């Protein structure tokens, strides 16, 4: 198993670590496969995600995918953010070892939960897809 250069780069220098005070949405997910835990915070203004931060307990891939997903959602509309899949996160990182694909699913789930939380708070109609079941590979 070997990580791509971009995974290692995000692992070494993770972007957007931390919490957002008074967030507009929070997604907290635990990985049933290996036990990793991820928390994602978003700030939304006029339907656009203006800031995203994360906290993660997990391996190199879990930290790198957390970091990448926060980068990917910034400046996206809610609808655009809902379309970000685990594969998109993995691809943006130059791929993940097959055994680590579940980490990208964790990142997608955290994002979907944060978006759901945001919609719940603002009582927007639920328009997005349901959170996908865990897929490995």
């Amino acid at each position: 198993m070997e990580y791509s250069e971009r995974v290692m780069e995000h692992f070494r220098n993770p972007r957007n670590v931390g919490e957002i005070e008074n967030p507009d949405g929070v997604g907290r997910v635990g990985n049933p496969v290996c036990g990793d835990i991820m928390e994602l915070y978003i700030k939304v203004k006029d339907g656009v995600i203006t800031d995203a931060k994360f906290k993660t307990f997990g391996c190199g891939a879990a930290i790198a995918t957390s970091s990448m997903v926060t980068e990917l959602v910034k400046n996206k509309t809610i609808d655009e953010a809902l379309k970000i899949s685990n594969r998109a996160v993995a691809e943006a990182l130059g791929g993940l070892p097959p055994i680590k694909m579940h980490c990208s699913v964790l990142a997608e789930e955290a994002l979907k939960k944060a978006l759901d939380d945001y919609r719940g708070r603002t009582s927007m109609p639920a328009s997005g897809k349901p959170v996908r079941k865990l897929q490995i590979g």
Partner: protein
Amino acid sequence: MKKIYLDNAATTPTDARVLEAMLPFFSQMYGNPSSLHVFGQEAKHAIEEARYIVAQFIGAKQEEIIFTSGGTESNNSAIKGVAYARHDKGNHIITSKIEHHAVLEPCHFLEKQGFEVTYIPVDEFGLVDPADVKKAITGKTILISIMQANNEIGTIEPIAEIGKIAREKGMYFHTDAVQTLGHIPINVSELNVDLLSASGHKLYGPKGVGILYVKKGIRMLPFMHGGDQEQGRRASTHNVPGIVGFGKAVELAKEEMAKEIEQLTLLRDKLIKGILDKIEYARLNGHPAERLPNNVNVSISYVEGESMLLNLDMEGIACSTGSACTSSSLEPSHVLAAIGLSHELAHGSLRFSLGRLTSEEDIDYCLTRLSGIVRKLRAMSPLYKKEVK
């Protein structure tokens, strides 16, 4: 950048003196020990000398040492070889829950073939209770296999006591000594073992060579069929350079082991104390005293093992972890589960295994870097914030 190797339980560097002893046997004394001519005989002489050194070192007779390709082959040969040879006597094997996969997997394989295996649990320190072994013996038991020391947590098992029970009950007793040969004293008579496995590359010898001690009179079927090398007990042309290297590694261990035990124990205890003092919410895994001189295994709460390992690697420090994240099954270490660690604590485990080349400076460097890494990872851990605040 500094490069500090603290993964000697995975493998050790081949000692320069070992390599030097091996080199002539590649292109100068390249004969096949089974050949009658001079080329063959000088190679034969070299492997017999190595066999003598090894036998002496563990209190065995020369003809009781079989050279193999390594620890995995030795363990497989001992377990399957005895199981098949003694199938007429019974089909029950006793082992422990914390054995290396090279013991557990042959046992699982035999279970599929109709053998029954009892996996003895261990206590919180990883110790097997000899009384549990005694209780597990049935009329159908044909073999007991308990490791001399655990490769992950370093706990040294009460082998002599278990061996005594095996002897009283007339059971064959095998021990996996891959982590112990050359690191702590071994005497097969004092340990009451009938079979013992060890590997060259764990004691500064080369990879690809091991030994199986088989006490005279023990029945076992060979694992490799072919020529009549090793008195028909292990076919295949001898790995002459490897065997010579094994012999040299044992010779060096004989001279240096006592001093090494003393030095490594000091460094080990310094590293353990340093981690427990410097890092909050850390615990030692394994036994505090009945422990290999080179083994440190700790669990650090709220951080995951692989991310610590990768960060340490970036600082030039090599170690290993029992985290689920680094195993191909995504299951945490079976050893850490057996001593009762929660999934989270197993997830945050690190093993540092010291060696001949480890210095006190290395330990200081490791301690400094590890504290910083744990601080950095905890700052991004959602668990730390919640539970510690």
